[in-house]
């Protein structure tokens, strides 16, 4: 059935009424934090990452860690954030070793271990860097554990993010597992043909091309098909797409978004310019 459409560029089509949607499309996550609008959760996550990195010394990372912990426990995802924290172990170990023992200019010796000396200021710097890294990793964790990519992208599109950006992000996230799988297949195929993945570094460097070559040329022919598919579906048409699902939002959340965004920007600006001295 064809519906007459207003073809004037930039004009939005009518918004759908959610009552018409089947239940699987209008599903609503449970719990307070999960049910927040995705844009609110995105703003909170970015603000926490920025504060953890930009507000130096102890306060910034500790405040963010406390917030992240509260959110994780109240949203019942504390257990699932553990892998995100564990993933930082190699970096944290490196931070501790390098900074505790080799902190430039530090003189407050804690103890000596062979040729290197552990210093108090080095240990403090290592602890701060660790808190920053863990706070950041957990801020990422609560965003990705409470927000589905589809919800986030469809909400951002409703707010005016271009369909090209939405397509690029959404399709990249969908493609990654497939591309990893394909990388595995190519590795196996090349190994069967004698690719050396165990030998000397020089032999392994020569393995880069047999891996990258088939991946890229295969992917480029896929680009060809995707281009045709997109063009066939009027991807370049100069109109806004109709939003099928409207995710709930409220004036209070709007206030939270602006408050969190401006508040963290002000705190960071004050801290960076040295006007706000925190312990």
């Amino acid at each position, binding site marked *: 059935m064809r519906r007459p459409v207003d073809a004037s560029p930039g004009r939005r089509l009518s918004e759908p009424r959610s009552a018409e949607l089947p239940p699987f499309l209008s599903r609503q996550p449970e719990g307070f934090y999960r049910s927040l609008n995705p844009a609110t959760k995105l703003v909170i*996550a970015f603000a926490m*990452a920025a504060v953890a*990195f930009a507000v130096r010394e102890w306060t910034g990372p500790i405040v963010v860690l406390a917030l992240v912990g509260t959110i994780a426990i109240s949203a019942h995802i504390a257990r699932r954030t553990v892998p*995100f924290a564990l993933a*930082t172990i*190699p*970096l*944290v170990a*490196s*931070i501790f*070793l*390098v*900074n505790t023992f*080799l902190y*430039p*200019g530090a003189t407050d010796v804690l103890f000596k271990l062979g040729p*290197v000396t552990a210093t108090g200021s080095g240990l403090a*710097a*290592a602890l*701060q*860097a660790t808190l*920053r*890294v863990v706070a*950041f990793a957990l801020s*990422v964790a609560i*965003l*990705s554990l409470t927000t589905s990519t589809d919800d986030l992208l469809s909400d951002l599109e409703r707010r005016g993010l271009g369909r090209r950006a939405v*397509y*690029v*992000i959404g399709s*990249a*996230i969908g*493609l*990654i*597992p497939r*591309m*990893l799988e394909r*990388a595995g297949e190519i*590795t196996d195929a090349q190994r069967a043909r004698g690719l050396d993945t165990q030998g000397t*570094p020089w032999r*392994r*460097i020569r*393995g*880069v*091309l047999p*891996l*990258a*070559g088939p*991946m*890229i*040329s295969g*992917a*480029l022919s896929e*680009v*060809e098909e*995707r*281009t045709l598919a*997109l*063009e066939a579906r009027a*991807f370049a048409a100069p109109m806004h797409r109709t939003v099928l699902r409207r995710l709930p939002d409220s004036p209070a959340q709007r206030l939270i978004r602006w408050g969190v965004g401006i508040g963290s920007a002000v705190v960071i600006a004050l801290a960076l310019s040295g006007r706000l001295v925190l312990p």
Partner: protein
Amino acid sequence: MSGQFSTRVIALIPVAIAINIALGYTVQTVLKLPIYLDSIGTILVGVLAGPLAGLATGVLTNLIWQYAPGIGGGTIGPFAITAGVIGLLAGIWGRYGVYRSRPASGSQLLLAAIVAAALVIVVVLPIVNNQTYLDPNVGGFPDWAVPAAIGIAIIAAIVVAGFTYLRHDLAGLWVAGAGLVTGLIAAAVSAPISAYVFGGVTGSGTDVIVAALRQGGADVLNASLGQGFFSDPIDKMITSFVVFIVLAGLSPRIIARFPNGPRLVTVDEAPS
């Protein structure tokens, strides 16, 4: 500007992002090489589609790697700035036709091969001449560090020169140069991020170099910079050559459809 984001380029960018992540992951886990190789897709997009498309690919790669559920990017997010700069530079190289094949022969080819080898050595010299590496009392490096660096440089120089000479293609010189410059700039952009955000380390094998430079008396920023100047040019040179070889192996018909395509394919003269 909008020509840089045709539907074809929009279809290419997510594929390039997935290539970056899948290849970076595979090279690090399967081949276990101490290089990143997570910018092949970014450089490919920059070369094929232009600086802004390259910039977008680089930045989005790191943000998606960090934030997408189930992939677990660790700490790659803040380096989105570096990845963006790499894509931007690749776009500029593409604009100037650096990745175009330039067939040559005779003395011109020989000269290019020698210049290419010299280029590699010139970049390694300041690293090798650095007091921290030379003096065992200062740097605390094992005796084999300097010979190893020189050895790597000589091998790289031979590979670049041999590549240029055997393929009868001046592009080897251009691609090596583009990779080196990209690597040096990427290192300069990464060092402050790593120093400011992560206390100067990245949690990978290259932290050994950071530790050695710190032991030699370098401060947090300079130690990260020294490590970057060591790893990044090698990494970006390998990446550039991989992109060049793959592009050279593709049908010109496919390449010519991208915005930068006409600058990348040498048009054969019509048979008379």
